[in-house]
């Protein structure tokens, strides 16, 4: 290709950032635009990773130095499919890489799931992390008990956020609107339900260990000590290092004497599935039944009902944390059974199975919502290898309107409040400065108006 290839990455989360970095490393001779629907970059690193895990948020320095500091542009507050179409991107770029993640949550499929007071844990996460689209959500924390459904790290994060003391919360960058509500929370007990047993819990042992070490928080795991024979055999023969550590930690938790004087407590319950979320006008409780672990026909371990007996757990808040799910993007193929863009090593495939020239994917929308932050690095390297191969082979069509000015003019026309890297720097500087004043890592701007005003150089009060 005669002129420098111009690449659009849609979504400035970890997958998009690792992709931009990998592309600059392996094929420096490209121009990259990182398009993002929020005014701020880094996706779930900013909006997902829990506020009390600040060390992980340091990854943003690496993202910055390997992307924006190396000439990759940030074009924030631009929504592909709304402000600009897929076809328009294809007309302006040599290639488009979709890194839009998995933006919605999986449903439980039980009655009462939509009652007021029953939320997707991801909504709670977005709210406490200052995602501007979630700040108006009204979480009622006036009941004494909350139930968290699910056993993954998001479940662990929301459980910690519901039990952390006011002082500890005040040292984090939790959004101010959430800090206020969490500080006046009446919740004393969080019951965490796992459908499967201790050996199958999806927590990392690090997150599980952390739950057992919270200041002023008692932890009970009454069924952590016993492992059914099927799970025991699995653990001894095929169990991962993490599963073994989790079982060890849980039996240690099970043996703990009750903690006297703890202000709050967490109860981890295993082999328990919700069958209904009930309440007159809002959540009043969850009906659950016991499960047992069996070896299914395909050889995998599965949770099956252990009987018809049910039990109720009264509560005023339910957070459902059973996984993320990607949503289709306009004008791009979508696999409705796996909720990903159909792809081969990152090349998006049309319904006939052939690659769609110039269209690529990375991250959760490519592989499904699995893995941790660093998983995206290898994933990005795979997609970038395909793109570089196609660039070198000259198989990508020259875009109709290849100049940077052309896309800038189009975006300016569609959206006057575009946020560039400079605007993001202004936002970040403002948040850090407010953080220094309050002895916190940062104080987030959590409304679009404030973010856009700060990005454009106005000083919010």
């Amino acid at each position, binding site marked *: 290709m005669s002129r420098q290839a111009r690449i659009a990455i849609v979504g400035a989360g970890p997958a998009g950032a690792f992709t931009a970095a990998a592309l600059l490393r392996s094929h420096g001779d490209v121009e990259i635009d990182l398009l993002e629907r929020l005014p701020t970059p880094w996706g779930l690193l900013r909006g997902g990773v829990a506020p009390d895990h600040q*060390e992980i948020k340091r*990854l943003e320095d690496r993202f910055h130095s390997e992307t924006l500091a190396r000439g990759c542009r940030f074009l924030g507050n631009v929504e592909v499919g709304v402000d600009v179409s897929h076809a328009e991107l294809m007309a302006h770029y040599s290639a488009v890489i979709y890194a839009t993640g998995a933006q919605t949550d999986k449903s439980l499929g039980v009655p009462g799931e939509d009652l007021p007071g029953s939320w997707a844990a991801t909504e709670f996460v977005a709210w406490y992390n200052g995602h501007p689209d979630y700040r108006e959500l009204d979480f009622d924390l006036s009941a004494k008990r909350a139930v968290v459904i699910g056993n993954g790290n998001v479940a662990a994060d929301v459980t910690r956020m519901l039990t952390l003391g006011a002082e500890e919360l005040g040292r984090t960058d939790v959004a101010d609107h959430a800090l206020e509500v969490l500080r006046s929370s009446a919740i004393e007990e969080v019951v965490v339900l796992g459908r499967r047993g201790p050996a199958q819990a999806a927590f*990392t042992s690090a997150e599980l260990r952390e739950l057992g070490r919270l200041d002023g928080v008692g932890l009970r795991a009454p069924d952590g000590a016993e492992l059914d024979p099927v799970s025991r055999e699995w653990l001894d023969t095929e169990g991962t290092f*993490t599963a073994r550590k989790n079982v060890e930690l849980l039996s240690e938790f099970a043996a703990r004497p009750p903690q006297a004087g703890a202000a709050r407590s967490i109860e981890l319950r295993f082999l328990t599935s919700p069958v209904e979320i009930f309440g007159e006008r809002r959540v009043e409780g969850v009906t659950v039944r016991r499960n047992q672990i069996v070896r299914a026909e395909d050889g995998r371990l599965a949770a099956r009902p252990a009987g018809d007996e049910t039990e109720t757990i009264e509560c005023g808040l339910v957070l459902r944390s059973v996984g993320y799910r990607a949503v289709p993007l306009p004008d791009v193929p979508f696999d409705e059974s796996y909720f990903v863009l159909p792809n081969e090593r990152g090349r998006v495939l049309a319904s006939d199975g052939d690659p769609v020239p110039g269209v690529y994917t990375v991250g959760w929308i490519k592989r499904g919502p699995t893995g941790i932050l*660093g998983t995206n690095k290898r994933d990005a390297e795979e997609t970038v290898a395909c793109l570089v191969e196609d660039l070198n082979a000259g198989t990508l069509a020259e875009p109709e309107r290849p100049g940077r000015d052309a896309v800038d003019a189009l975006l300016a026309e569609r959206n006057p409040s575009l946020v560039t890297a400079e605007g993001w720097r202004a936002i970040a500087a403002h948040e850090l400065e407010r953080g220094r004043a309050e002895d916190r890592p940062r104080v987030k701007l959590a409304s679009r108006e404030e973010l856009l005003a700060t990005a454009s150089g106005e000083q919010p009060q």
Partner: protein
Amino acid sequence: MTYVITGSCIKDDSCIEVCPVDCIHPKPGDPDFETAEQLYIDPELCIDCDACVEACPVDAIFAEFEIPERHDYALDLNAEFFAGRSTIERTAA
């Protein structure tokens, strides 16, 4: 002396790339890489060179004598990951 990786690890493999003695596992492509929640340093092989500390983007790695209290489990955890593997397995990995 050894360095240890704590539970803050995000499995970015920057440390593996810079380790001169190949003592950080599992590595991409290893059978247990995908299921591992973090990476671990083999205390028998670590030469305390500090390269991984510099490479880690989330400051998850510490020298044995500088492990923060909240990560006091990490020394045993790293050692335990390699326990039961023979020296040959360790050095050939």
